[in-house]
């Protein structure tokens, strides 16, 4: 018998520190598979965010660096401008990218900086215990919205992909999801397309990946795909928004 699917060689031997069923792991796996398929696993650099993915560099074979919470786009701008030939992924959570770092994120996108942002949208601040984020759904219970998020008090849902797609500079803006095999394959294709654009023609790309947080959603991981399909994706529809 021959193996027809195996662990990507771009993943390190370490087991990830993500909780069981967390789709951060899926995103890291896909990035590794794509880097292998594009033959860039020795060149690619990934920016690990402050958040659950802070140890990202330990799980992958390629190089990584960090930035203060919310500032990957600023740090990444410096890195990419001084190393224009090095493919760069900014791996960010929704709190990092759409809350504390929204200014850096939007200005970098509007300037068309030459990196790829991969944003993991799990609708909460995962690492710090599941507080509400700008991506938290109306009515969603979190540690800081215990009776459900009230949009009149806490603001409506910020849809970062739609905002970024309204700018002229970005070459590719898409939202995908990680809750079914079909969506995972589409997400992988989107990551590949974003990196190909970055490498072949240069320019900014943004891939938002709808993800789960079973621990902070207080949900059995097995129930998360159904909840994502029936509730989350109604608020955050998947598909290409630009390019």
């Amino acid at each position, binding site marked *: 018998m021959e193996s027809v699917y195996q662990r990507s060689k771009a993943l390190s031997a370490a087991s990830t520190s993500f909780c069981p069923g967390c789709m951060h792991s899926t995103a890291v796996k896909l990035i590794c598979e794509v880097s292998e398929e594009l033959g860039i696993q020795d060149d690619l650099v990934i920016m690990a965010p402050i958040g659950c993915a802070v140890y990202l560099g330990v799980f992958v074979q390629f190089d990584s660096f960090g930035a203060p919470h919310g500032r990957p786009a600023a740090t990444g701008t410096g890195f990419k401008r001084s190393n224009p030939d090095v493919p760069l992924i900014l791996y960010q959570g929704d709190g990092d990218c759409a809350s504390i770092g929204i200014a850096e994120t939007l200005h970098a996108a509007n300037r068309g900086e030459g990196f790829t942002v991969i944003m993991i949208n799990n609708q909460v601040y995962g690492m710090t215990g599941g507080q509400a984020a700008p991506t938290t759904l109306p009515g969603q219970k979190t540690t800081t919205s215990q009776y459900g998020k009230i949009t009149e008090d806490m603001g409506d849902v910020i849809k970062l992909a739609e905002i970024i797609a309204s700018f002229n500079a970005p070459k590719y803006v898409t939202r995908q999801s990680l809750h079914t095999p079909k969506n*995972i394959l589409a997400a992988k294709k989107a990551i590949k397309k974003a990196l190909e654009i970055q490498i072949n023609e240069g320019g900014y790309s943004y891939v938002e990946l709808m993800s789960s947080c079973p621990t902070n959603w207080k949900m059995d*991981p097995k129930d998360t795909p159904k909840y994502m399909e029936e509730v989350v994706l109604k608020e955050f529809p998947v598909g290409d928004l630009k390019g």
Partner: protein
Amino acid sequence: MAKVVIDPVYCKGCGLCFAVCPKGLLKTGDKVNAKGYAYAMQENEEQCTACKLCAIMCPDAAITVYK
């Protein structure tokens, strides 16, 4: 002939692979790994078609598919 091998080092027993197996061959095993997770196992191996859906779904890249 086909089968899947689940690596106990990486499987966290989340069960995301159970529902995507068209034949329902995956379930929680009775052994626990070093991290304390009861990892998944495949039963009735002879029914596996190597469709890869479980491996694609597995967040932790714990599944190798053989054909």
